[in-house]
């Protein structure tokens, strides 16, 4: 599904965030991306979402060379992903409802379908009574959950989560993990960057550990360490 060959990412500021990364992630896998702060987890995710392009190496999704993708194709590529950004990236001018609905409108979902699905999604993340609020009127954890609802709205091939539980209490975190497991069972590939060692330890899924931009561990049923 995802193949990285000798990927290197050097930011314009000179920081080398990823170096010599060779990875293969198969369809339907559940992958934890761990590593200390600044190890390169978010950079890895930004490469997959084509927010940035690698300074060396190549990146394939399902045989498609992402680094050479034509500009016009990028939006369609991104729609096949569900992304929970570390900094949420909610539309601050739009209500919670609109934020989720927007993602569905983009891919051309019918209004009727949107009206039926958005409340279900909000309910799933425990925000059914928050649809009319603006992101600024929500707590940190609530905003994070809106981002999650938006990411899963279109049943993406790959769900990419950058520390989706950073601002969630343990109980809500576990509910989210349950949701991710369920999506995974239905076939979605999950990539999740996290610092939550207990979750990693309990789930015993594939663990890719980064350190200073290099893959230092890639275990199929690993723990946090």
């Amino acid at each position: 599904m995802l193949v990285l060959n000798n990927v290197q990412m050097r930011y314009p500021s000179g920081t080398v965030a990823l170096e010599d990364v060779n990875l293969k992630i198969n369809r339907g896998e559940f992958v934890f991306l761990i590593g200390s702060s600044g190890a390169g987890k978010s950079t890895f995710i930004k490469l997959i979402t084509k927010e940035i392009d690698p300074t060396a190496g190549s990146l394939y999704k399902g045989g498609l060379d992402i680094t050479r993708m034509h500009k016009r194709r990028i939006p369609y590529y991104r729609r096949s992903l569900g992304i929970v950004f570390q900094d949420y990236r909610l539309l601050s001018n739009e209500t919670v409802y609109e934020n989720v609905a927007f993602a569905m409108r983009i891919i051309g979902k019918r209004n009727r379908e949107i009206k039926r699905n958005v409340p279900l999604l909000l309910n799933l993340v425990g925000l059914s009574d928050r649809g009319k609020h603006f992101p600024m009127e929500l707590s940190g954890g609530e905003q994070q959950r809106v981002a999650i609802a938006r990411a899963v709205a279109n049943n993406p091939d790959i769900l990419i989560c950058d520390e989706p539980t950073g601002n969630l209490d343990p109980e809500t975190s576990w509910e989210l993990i349950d949701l991710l497991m369920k999506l995974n069972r239905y076939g979605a590939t999950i990539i999740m960057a996290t610092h939550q060692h207990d979750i990693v330890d309990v789930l015993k899924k594939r663990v890719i550990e980064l350190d200073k931009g290099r893959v230092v561990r890639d275990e199929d049923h690993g723990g946090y360490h």
Partner: protein
Amino acid sequence: MIRSPFFTALKNMVRNAMMSLASILSVTSTLVILGIVLLLILNVNNLTMEFTDKFDVMRVQVAYEYTPEQVQQLKTAFEAVPNVDSVLLITRDEAFAQMKEDWGEEADLLEGLPENPLSDTLEVRVSDVSLSDQTYEELDKVDENDTIYYYKTTIERILRISNVIRNVGIILIVVLLFITMLVINNTVRIGIASRKSQIQIMRYVGATRGHIRHPYLIEGVILGILGAGISSVLLYFGYQEVIRMAAADLADLTAQPLLRADVVILRIGILNLIIGIGVGLIGSLFSVRKYLKV
């Protein structure tokens, strides 16, 4: 089905009411200024035309010795010259009678004259004052024995001044158009810069350029239309007030010297509309473009 971009545009404008107001104000301001200068120039131009029209008569003093038949022939010949509108004959007798009348009490002095010292005169009215020079030459060719008087230098001066005003006006309007574009463009650009992160987020979630751009284009057009509309209304009432003032001050002038408000403002309004829409459209197009790269 994606929500109508028109709806999104309206929603954005209402939510960013302050910003929209600022944009509309800027568009309105610059269009008002453009309108004012246009009004100034159109009126100056008009006044010049009216002024020169007063000098559309050439006085031809026919040679003293010509017989009335010869004078009649001359008149007919003049009437055939291009740019000649009409020719009026004032005979030496009519002129002498007029002179006596003018001299009033002292007219009896004229009785002492051995004979009428005046010549017959042909008053040639031209159609286009600015062609007076050519017409003069043609009239002169017809008969070489008479003297043609016309307000050569006066006409030339007025035409030159009118030319300067027209040239300065055209330059001014080009400059103003450019400035209007700049101001509107800046406003739209600054407005969009403040929504930069929103645009980027949409891109990251998979929105195409169209999804993002259309509402902004529509917004730009709406802002342009509103600006053009408001500026036209302001110009209309402002100009009417000026006409009112002018009418009070210039009450005894025969003709109303200023152009009529409705006619002039209709034209300026249409111009404003075109500029407003064009600039709004171009402004948003270029501004959004910058943030569509992610």
